[in-house]
């Protein structure tokens, strides 16, 4: 009996101890893989070393449901989450995130245009690009139109299994000027036109769902050309020495953000972390680890020229970008996703 009681007391003590340990730190959730490995070195460990606030990491794949479940139940475990712009477009109006007080982070004007939003602050410039294997196509595709040209560049195509960027690219390949893409896509005829263009390569498409897949599909020669998030391809080129090449034409410019789920328990520490991670010299180290652009305008001057040349924001790569419109997708995403899933299944 006494032994049992001792064990009970000990485990109670242990629970209290871990409870207080959790209360001291913050929980940050991101997308896993090489991306989160980079964040650990760039942000989490230096932040913990500087402030003494322990960082507990979690991983997810952008399931807004996991945030909604916490907010609805009032038991918010995640203090800071790395989110994409589609999640912000719907989640901000649905009240899933705290409205940010920029006086506690950094002046809004310091950020790249579009990065400082009401509910989330940009951490990286991430772009969707096309990529191919140089050993397969020595004279590779150069434009989005080439991506859709099966005669000039035969072989399977990798695309993300979501409508985002695919519909835009289809219109661009079909000859719609870059500036009019979202205007055309807002009309029923424009949507039909985008799907008709996708139809021309449909039987050659391999659909990917996780960010790590495109580089793998290329390496396995499962696809000849694929869409991908630029940093993942850049990592494969610079660290794994893969013979890949990036097509920067019509790269879809977007952001990843830090956001605080509504009702987060460690609000002050969450702000402290986001302010730390938005600091120009700190953010600059991120670009060395995974090749995404910084969102703080002052960060560029801390980045070596040879690293700058690999980033999506390098002048050479910004000749013909597509500025991704998260607002458009917030308003039309549901209907277009339904149509897209339907089209997929047919």
């Amino acid at each position, binding site marked *: 009996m006494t032994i049992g009681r001792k064990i009970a007391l000990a485990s109670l003590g242990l629970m209290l101890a871990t409870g207080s340990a959790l209360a001291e730190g913050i929980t940050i959730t991101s997308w896993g893989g090489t991306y989160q490995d980079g964040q650990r070195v760039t942000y989490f460990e230096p932040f913990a070393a500087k402030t003494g606030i322990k960082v507990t990491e979690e991983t997810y794949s*952008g*399931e*807004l*449901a*996991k945030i*909604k479940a916490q907010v609805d139940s009032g038991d918010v475990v995640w203090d800071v989450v790395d989110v994409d712009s589609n999640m912000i477009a*719907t989640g*901000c*109006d*649905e*009240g899933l995130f705290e*409205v940010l007080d920029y006086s506690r982070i950094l002046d809004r004007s310091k950020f790249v245009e579009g990065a400082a939003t009401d509910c989330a602050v940009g951490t990286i410039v991430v772009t969707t690009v096309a990529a191919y294997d140089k050993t397969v196509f020595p004279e590779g595709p150069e434009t989005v139109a080439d991506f859709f040209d099966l005669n000039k560049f035969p072989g*399977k195509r990798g695309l993300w*299994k979501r409508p985002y960027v695919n519909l835009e690219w289809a219109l661009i390949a079909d000859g719609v000027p870059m500036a009019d893409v979202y205007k055309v896509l807002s009309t029923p005829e424009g949507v039909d036109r985008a799907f008709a263009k996708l139809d021309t390569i449909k039987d050659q498409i*391999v*659909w990917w*769902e996780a960010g790590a897949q495109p580089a793998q599909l290329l390496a*396995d*020669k*499962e696809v000849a050309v694929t869409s991908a998030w630029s940093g993942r391809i850049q990592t494969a080129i610079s660290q794994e020495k893969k013979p890949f090449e990036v097509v920067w034409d019509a790269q879809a410019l977007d952001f990843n953000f830090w956001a605080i789920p509504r009702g987060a328990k460690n609000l002050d520490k969450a702000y402290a972390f986001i302010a730390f991670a938005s600091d120009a010299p700190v953010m600059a180290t991120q670009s060395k680890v995974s090749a995404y652009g910084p969102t703080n305008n002052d960060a560029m001057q801390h980045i070596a020229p040879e690293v700058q040349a690999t980033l999506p924001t390098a002048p050479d790569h910004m000749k013909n970008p597509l500025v991704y419109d998260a607002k458009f997708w917030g*308003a*039309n995403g*549901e*209907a277009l*996703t*339904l*149509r897209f*899933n*339907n*089209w*997929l*299944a*047919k």
Partner: protein
Amino acid sequence: MAILSAAGVQKARLAGLVLPLLAFMAAFFFLPVGHLLMRAVQEPELSQLAPNLQREIRAWDGTGMPPEMVLVSFRDDLAALQRDRRAAVVAKRAAAVDPAYREMIMTAARAASAEHAPTPESLLDAAPLLQDPATWAALRRVFAPFTDSYLLATVDRTRDPATGSVVPVAPNEAIFVDTLARTLGISLAVTLICLLLAYPLAYVIVRQTTTVQAIMLTFVLLPFWTSILVRSAAWLVLLQTHGVVNDALMSLSLVSEPLQLVYSRAGTILAMVHIQLPFTFLPIYSVMKSIPDDYARAASSLGARPSYVFSRVYLPMTLPGVAAGCLLTFILCLGYYITPALLGGPSDQMLSYYVAYYLNLNVNWSMAAAVSLVLLIITLVIYVVYVRMVPILHQTER
């Protein structure tokens, strides 16, 4: 009397033994599952978010334009929601009826939350769709305490916004009937293939010595001990365009171009058969093991030819095992998610894919609940048919 009470005590003791399990099942299975499934017909959120609007709009009879009270509560509830940043939740519910309603609700919410509250009439000017009585009739249905719209959506039906009658959805939005047919088709194909493989296998294994049986059984059961995810991923490695199978076929010059084995129906069914085979095999095997040789010998001694012995004596006696094995495989197949997701193409996804999609990505838990309910109902129907069939099967056994 004494004996009876002793039996009663015994019974109570036995009940006491399973009581923890029952309590566990109730607390962690039936309650949460039931709660989630209720979402298929109910919107618990709306009554909390816009209580006044719900009360007023339900009190109205739904003809023509709504009275002033509805408009006022519409304005006030939306303004409060907008300040609390929850207006989009209502907008999302309304958008399920018509995608244009999302922007309408959000525009109205922004206008309503302005510093000087607008008159209800000027709110209608801000979002012109609100001037249409049909919009209000549709909104009234959005706020109904119970809704059939999610269940209707799972059979590609919807309510006409103006009249409220059930109509088919636009052809390019219809998705679930096809998916349902595909789910049943794939499950049936896998069940039949499993049966064709498992029956002869069980027939051979029962006829071995005990030692050989034990060894062969180990091989059959081996896949059981590996997770479904690992096995599906292993098939991916084997079947991909430059995978083991295609490389072997190419080097043997059996094919000139790599075959498309992954991201296809064939790959999905192949991997599912591999996973389901033990589930079909085991019930058949155990029934065959319990059939003595005497019956077949008796039939032969009376002059029956082997084919006659098999079809009229042996096969009927194994039918209960066949039915149990096929039922198990078919029901498990209905819920497959990870194997089609890894090995199938977009046109090979089954119903569970949409449960995951609505739950995780779309965050439309009502729709996820409705799709789950459809799966549950199909499973129950099949089970009831099976239970009815069992006595008939046992009759043929005799």
